[in-house]
């Protein structure tokens, strides 16, 4: 004691607390953080395993999380899952770092600085959940009472509880990302094949000829597809890739064809022409399971390879040869998923997506081995099967701020638009929006985020439920920290590889921080807004899962005993009826015609062509390890590439006097961004390719902040009128239908 001069006398010490030293301590309070084990609620998971499904991307591979001392040490793929087959991708294996990211939102917070904007410190203070929920409900209720329910926008993926929240509030405005992602595919599949949306299952493994236009499934590191396509290649399949850029998938292909951007439609029309003209189509399949062949025949009569060649800058012989190979090698399939040439990248993408379906139908690859498979899923109960609550208000059917109600083929699919939100809010047309609730959607994924920030600054109130402090969190008034997928529970239907019905069990890790699920938060807000009638007793994820288990005739423990998966592998029984009104695959899409769109895909050029200095087509791509903010703040995987670059053709760059590493401006009619140049031979001279996932200005992301630039700044936002003028049933945001100029800094 004398070593460091402690002079406290027992008398002095006792003076602090009264009669004895121990009572002095008692007065100072007991334990705040620690508690005897016997009294503990289960905050920490026990050692062992938890079954779950990866939430980094929507493939949802089933994992097994390995626990030690209350923490997940690592995850492995669940071998019982038909999707994962015992493997995860680099993003899935890395996802534990999202769970334990020190930047995570840990407690509810509110802003103390009323000024809202880029680079403005909100002055966060931690608050209790009660205060956060009261504050959110109070503000939303005030807006709803004064302006009506439509003045509240829920910006969130269209999942069960998110839809229920928006509809219970009574707003038609659930804004979601799908028109930057896959709506062009979705409307076409609805109209031509399924009667609902796109199917996500493809039996690549058994295909012998895989032809694709801009699909980069191997480069995006989709776990199952990467392995399945590799297996097909090992089995002797041929892979042919049309893409203006030498993608990872193109680099694995037998043939890479650097087609001119936005002209895939012409190439496909010519191939359809060849297959029909040379009578190479599968008569058995086409005769029995499709309608509209005669119209299609007449329609493509003039779309010859010679016609297409100068448009898409691919030799006519190559188009004809590949068409013949595709039709005569069985089984063959058009590989596509979301943001390929048929995704919402170009004004003509929906027509390209139509051609994808026609091509598959002509060779009999719809719901047949080696082709696109219509998902096999269990029918599980919906909310109204489990609980009774009032009908939603008719206000949910009213006009939307993003104009999506004007898209009759898209609207019933319950999807959303990112391209029109900013202009809708700013124009206050058809009415003002005054409050927004964001859930796990970041503004950097919108076209022209700076414009959206301007729009959001006009709102009275913004609440955000998210995992990391992304850009939208910096603009929020209240922050409601959400669980990661590790901390949620439920049953997950196999979707991206649903060859037979199978669900995966997701067991929750107790939340690492003071976080709550969207469902729990939304119920509390509804109750506090006076809308408790929409939250009947027992409503919640647990109740829904119980009902689902009963419908399946099983129990969670039984699924655990079976290795975390439920559903028996059954051989594929090809469908002979499809979900359209005709019960067949409508090559001429009757549903599109009924709604005022052409039923067959005529040639239509993309929205933009080279003009003046705007001589470069914008291409957007993603690194295999990148999936939004779920990976961008990961110190290890984000370290593989710390800034994005402007990928330019080396010869073209030399002409412009641009050397490797030079800083260049890339400028569109919307904005300009600065990047360093990277030169390659693997891209057309008239293109610039930029990696997505950079340009974060939220300093809250301590790893991702300040790296590179966001290519989304180059994509113009649209008014509803501009969007409608394009006549596209899929409401494409036209993410790559953008011309840019490039010049040195």
């Amino acid at each position: 004691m004398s070593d460091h001069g402690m002079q406290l006398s027992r008398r002095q010490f006792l003076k602090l607390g009264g009669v004895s030293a121990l009572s002095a301590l008692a007065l100072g309070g007991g334990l705040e953080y620690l508690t005897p084990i016997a009294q503990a609620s289960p905050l920490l998971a026990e050692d062992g395993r938890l079954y779950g499904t990866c939430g980094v991307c929507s493939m949802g591979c089933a994992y097994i999380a390995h626990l030690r001392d209350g923490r997940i040490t690592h995850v492995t793929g669940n071998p019982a899952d038909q999707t994962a087959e015992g493997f995860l991708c680099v993003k899935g294996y890395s996802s534990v770092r999202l769970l334990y990211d020190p930047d995570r939102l840990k407690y509810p917070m509110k802003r103390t600085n009323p000024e809202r904007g880029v680079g403005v410190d909100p002055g966060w203070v931690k608050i209790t959940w009660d205060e956060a929920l009261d504050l959110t409900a109070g503000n939303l209720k005030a807006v709803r009472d004064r302006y009506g329910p439509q003045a509240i926008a829920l910006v969130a993926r269209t999942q069960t509880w998110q839809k229920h929240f928006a509809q219970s509030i009574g707003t038609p405005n659930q804004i979601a990302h799908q028109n930057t992602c896959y709506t062009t595919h979705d409307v076409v599949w609805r109209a031509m094949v399924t009667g609902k949306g796109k199917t996500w299952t493809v039996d690549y493994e058994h295909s012998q000829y895989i032809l694709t236009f801009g699909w980069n499934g191997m480069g995006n590191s989709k776990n199952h597809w990467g392995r399945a396509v590799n297996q097909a290649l090992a089995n002797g399949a041929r892979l042919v890739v049309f893409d203006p850029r030498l993608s990872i998938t193109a680099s694995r292909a037998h043939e890479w064809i650097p087609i001119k951007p936005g002209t895939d439609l012409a190439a496909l029309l010519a191939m359809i022409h060849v297959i029909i003209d040379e009578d190479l189509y599968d008569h058995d399949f086409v005769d029995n399971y499709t309608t509209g062949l005669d119209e299609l025949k007449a329609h493509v009569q003039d779309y010859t390879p010679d016609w297409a060649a100068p448009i898409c800058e691919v030799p006519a012989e190559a188009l004809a040869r590949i068409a013949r190979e595709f039709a005569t090698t069985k089984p063959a399939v058009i590989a596509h998923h979301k943001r390929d040439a048929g995704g919402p990248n170009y004004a003509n993408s929906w027509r390209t997506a139509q051609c994808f379906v026609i091509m598959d139908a002509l060779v009999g690859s719809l719901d047949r081995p080696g082709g696109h498979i219509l998902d096999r899923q269990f029918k599980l109960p919906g909310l109204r099967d489990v609980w009774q609550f009032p009908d939603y208000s008719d206000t949910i059917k009213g006009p939307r701020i993003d104009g999506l109600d004007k898209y009759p083929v898209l609207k019933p699919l319950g999807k959303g638009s990112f391209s029109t939100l900013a202009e809708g809010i700013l124009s206050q047309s058809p009415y003002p929006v005054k409050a927004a609730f964001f859930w796990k959607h970041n503004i950097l994924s919108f076209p022209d985020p700076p414009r959206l920030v301007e729009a959001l600054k006009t709102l009275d109130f913004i609440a955000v439920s998210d995992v990391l402090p992304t850009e939208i969190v910096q603009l929020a008034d209240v922050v409601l920290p959400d669980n990661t997928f590790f901390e949620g529970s439920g049953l997950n239907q196999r979707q991206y590889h649903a060859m037979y019905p199978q669900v995966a069990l997701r067991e929750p890790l107790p939340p690492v921080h003071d976080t709550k699920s969207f469902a729990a938060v939304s119920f509390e807000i509804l109750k506090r807004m006076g809308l408790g009638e929409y939250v009947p007793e027992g409503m919640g994820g647990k109740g829904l899962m119980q009902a689902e288990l009963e419908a399946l005739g099983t129990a969670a423990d039984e699924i655990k005993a079976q290795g975390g998966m439920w559903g028996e592998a059954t051989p594929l029984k090809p469908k002979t009826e499809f979900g359209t009104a005709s019960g067949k695959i409508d090559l001429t899409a009757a549903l599109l015609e009924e709604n005022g769109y052409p039923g067959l895909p005529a040639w239509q050029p993309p929205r933009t062509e080279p003009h003046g200095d705007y001589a470069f087509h914008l291409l957007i791509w993603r690194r295999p390890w990148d999936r939004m903010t779920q990976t961008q703040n990961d110190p290890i995987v984000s370290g593989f590439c710390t800034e994005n670059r402007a990928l330019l053709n080396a010869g073209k760059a030399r002409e412009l006097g641009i050397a490797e590493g030079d800083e260049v401006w890339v400028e569109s009619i919307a904005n300009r961004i600065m990047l360093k140049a990277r030169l390659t031979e693997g891209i057309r001279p008239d293109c610039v390719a930029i990696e997505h996932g950079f340009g974060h200005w939220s300093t809250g992301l301590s790893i991702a902040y300040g790296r590179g630039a966001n290519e989304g700044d180059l994509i113009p936002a649209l008014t509803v009128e501009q969007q409608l003028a394009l006549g596209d049933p899929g409401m494409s945001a036209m993410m790559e239908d953008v011309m840019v100029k490039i010049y040195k800094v």
Partner: protein
Amino acid sequence: MSPWSEQDLARPTIYQALAQGLAYPSDEFMARAQDWQARLVEALEGVVLPVAQVTEALQAVNGDLQALQVEHTRLFINGVPHVLAPPYASVYIDGGQLFGRPAARALRAYQQAGLTLSAAAHALPDHLAVELEFMFYLGREGLEASEQGDVAQADLMRRRSAEFLSECLLPWAPAWRQRVEESAQLAFYPALARVIETWLSADSQFLANAT
């Protein structure tokens, strides 16, 4: 083993006061700030520590609870530019992620003492306030054992305190203190961080001599 001493009496108070100082600032804390300071100052009386800086810094806050909450949030939870001085051992000694091996080590120590984390507190095992509270707990248990004449138990608590301090607190306290000093806008948390670091070092010497 050294006889039970006056520092043994003061240690739990000190640890508890430091943990309380690091907790999220509440109305109650502000209302009882005088009492908190007095306890800290008196318990640390004579120890060569910059404790006066803490009291001065707290006076400078001038009862502005929100200012202290903003500072606490930006330094230790989430903020702009980003969480600057996360008070978790794992961040400093296990690669920057939360709930790393140091958290597991701390948790095992709590469990060995019959404790676990309270669900209501929503804290990780290697949060500095939790670790300080555990030191308070061990000290108090030792004091209680000593008052009841259970010398063996009292000595065990001292040994466990020494182990926990050297394994779970000392390795990262200086790095954390440095981040707080670099990032703070108010004087309070740097002052508290300096007291914490200096006290841990002093207590480590005391325990080394006493055990």
